[in-house]
């Protein structure tokens, strides 16, 4: 490492100073792009593994999907056309061996040719199969609430970081103070009380105090007229309980980890160096300690996202939120596995994208990763 630095040094010895823009371009050529490409390439096997896991989940229920569906239809007194059953079996590839079923499933999702029945029916090249529980195309059902799921998750995530980072810095710079203890206690409680239980309790309290449980993300009026600027306040008001319920546990986690990280950084030698230079305490905390402590937080972004999806699933059912949780529940109750699998897959992929983003952000933030090309 050192040697190569010297080599390049002698090479550039007499080179004229480059304008900053050019240097930036150079820099991108060298390290970061390589790093990002590497990460993106690693994304592919991860996706593949996720799809295998999801397919495994889809295959879990005893019996096959189409027979179960037809049996259900028959029990409702409907007469099922044998041709229809056969076409379904062909579409799902049920008569193929398992690995071929998987390949067909993946192939259909990635690209369904234009001459297929599916494309003629739905006009889409991505066949995620049909949801019996909703009587619609699986992707339609998933897509319905995808935007709102992402929006709600994003709002909660922003809330988490906005609240937890200042508290963590305070708690670490005032170790063993009253504020530190209070934040740790609340942190413990928040992390310990299961999300949906907090939801039940808050809903109960809200009902008791205001006579309104504030459930559902939208009022009746919003459902009719849509969310506009004038009723956005009402939407935010309805977000309060979800934010508290889903956000608290993650907030506490972030506070705890950033606090611990900050305490580690404060004890580092370079804070001593900075202090010996005459740097003011506040600058030491913000410029040196916080800046270093933020890195693990950024790398934990994927985990936070994952726990948000996890926490919001049951909570959404308690609070009757119009996000994917309740859909997943309904799908599972009806053993509508392709829909359930699609939801799990979409959430997992979102989390993996989150991890990807955090890795890339980390490369920007931490010069050590940037220069070593991510060989952590």
């Amino acid at each position, binding site marked *: *490492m*050192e040697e190569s*630095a010297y080599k390049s*040094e002698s090479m*550039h*010895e007499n080179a004229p*100073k480059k304008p900053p823009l050019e240097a930036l371009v150079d820099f991108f050529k060298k390290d970061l792009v390589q790093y990002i490409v590497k990460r993106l390439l690693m994304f592919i096997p991860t996706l593949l593994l996720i799809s295998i896991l999801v397919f495994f989940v889809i295959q879990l229920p005893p019996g096959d999907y189409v027979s179960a569906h037809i049996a259900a239809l028959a029990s409702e007194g409907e007469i099922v056309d044998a041709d229809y059953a056969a076409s379904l079996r062909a579409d799902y590839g049920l008569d193929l061996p398992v690995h071929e079923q998987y390949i067909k499933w993946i192939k259909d999702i990635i690209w369904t040719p234009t001459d297929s029945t599916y494309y003629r029916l739905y006009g889409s090249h991505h066949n995620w199969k049909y949801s019996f529980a909703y009587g619609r195309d699986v992707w339609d059902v998933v897509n319905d609430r995808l935007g709102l799921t992402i929006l709600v998750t994003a709002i909660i995530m922003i809330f988490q970081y906005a609240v937890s980072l200042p508290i963590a810095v305070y708690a670490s710079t005032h170790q063993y103070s009253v504020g530190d203890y209070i934040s740790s206690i609340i942190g413990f409680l928040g992390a310990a009380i299961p999300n949906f239980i907090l939801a039940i309790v808050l809903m109960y309290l809200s009902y008791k105090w205001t006579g309104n449980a504030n459930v559902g993300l939208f009022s009746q009026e919003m459902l009719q007229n849509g969310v506009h600027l004038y009723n956005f306040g009402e939407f935010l008001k309805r977000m309060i309980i979800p934010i508290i319920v889903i956000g608290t546990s993650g907030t506490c986690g972030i506070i705890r980890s950033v606090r611990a990280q900050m305490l580690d950084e404060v004890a*580092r*030698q*370079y804070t*001593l*160096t*900075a*202090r*010996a*230079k*005459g*740097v*003011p*305490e506040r600058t030491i905390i913000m*410029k*040196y300690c916080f*800046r*270093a402590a933020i890195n693990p937080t950024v790398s934990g972004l994927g985990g936070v996202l994952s726990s948000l999806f996890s926490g919001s699933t049951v909570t959404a059912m308690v609070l009757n939120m119009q996000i994917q949780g309740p859909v997943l529940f309904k799908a599972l109750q009806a053993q509508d596995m392709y829909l359930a699998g699609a939801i799990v897959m979409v959430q997992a992929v979102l989390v993996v994208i989150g991890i990807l983003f955090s890795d890339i952000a980390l490369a920007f933030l*931490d*010069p*050590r990763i940037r*220069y070593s090309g991510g060989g952590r």
Partner: protein
Amino acid sequence: MNKENILEVKDLHVDIHMTEGLLTAVRGVNFEMKRGETLGLVGESGCGKSLTCKAILGINDRKCVPSGQILFDSEGLGKVDLLSLDQKGKEIRSIRGKEISMIFQEPMVAFSPMYTIGNQINEATKLHITKDKQKSKEISMDVMRKVGIANVEKRYNQYPHEFSGGMLQRALIAMALVCNPKMLIADEPTTALDVTIQAQILELMKELQKDFNMAILFITHDLGVVAKMCDRVAVMYLGKIVESAAASEIYANPQHPYTRGLIGSVHKIGSKKEDRLFSIEGTVPLAMNLPKACGFYDRCDVRIEGLCDKAEPELTEIAPGHKIACFNCPHEACRAQREKVEEALAKGALTQSPSEDPGPAKAVPKKKKGGAQ
């Protein structure tokens, strides 16, 4: 305060508050430094060297509480007791880095990995000299050149992990010298480096000392380094100075048994094969609840039973500039002290703070203040 002295440390104590109790790691240290001179502070690990110099800058851990007096002849504030200043206040910050700066033991961890070397050196310049970005950058780069960093334009924008240990130590020295301080504290600056690099760094420090006319407080456990660098030497043991003298005097004529042991344990070129390297037996006792006795008693080969384990010797001047804290020394001044203490012991006058005293060790040296100085 003597006019030519830049720093006077008087009866410095550093207490460490631990969950297990109070540990007095520095127990009444006295020394002074003249302008432009190099004082070597020598001792084993854990003898309180580092704590002493951190106390000067007021950058000790929160658990470490210094007490006593550290008088510094400051440009901005005149003669000032550094310990009396608010340790987070503006005054002490205007001294840190500007008038007294410090070089640390491990250059690899002394820089934050998040910022470029230039940024971190420049920070001191911007704080103490000029707010002008261009100017301060030039000043910083100048100093970097001075400490022997090649290709400064490039190096300025590099991160610590792109530097080698020796280069980092040079950068650390640049960071310490950028404000042209009057005093430099070097806390074992070469311990973490290769031997060849060590020599380079020491040479560099010597040169720079001349250029900047700095006083250097050089902390080390390496007697070879002391011989090369220092004008005067103070030997510390268990939180106290046990011997101090001019560097040449210490080598030629070591008086304290501990100093003799230290010098005896240095390998000499040309010594006979069968001569074994001398080693001091035993280990340094834990500086917690110390009984009233000479700290070196257990490991001493010339100890006097009934005296050295009953009382602690004071630092006594035996020749101009040569002080020693030992009862068993043929010199007159020491003998006088010894007789005085023996007399007092016989009378039982010193039993007022018996060795069974469970209280903190801090009480012990304080009661004998002003004995032989």
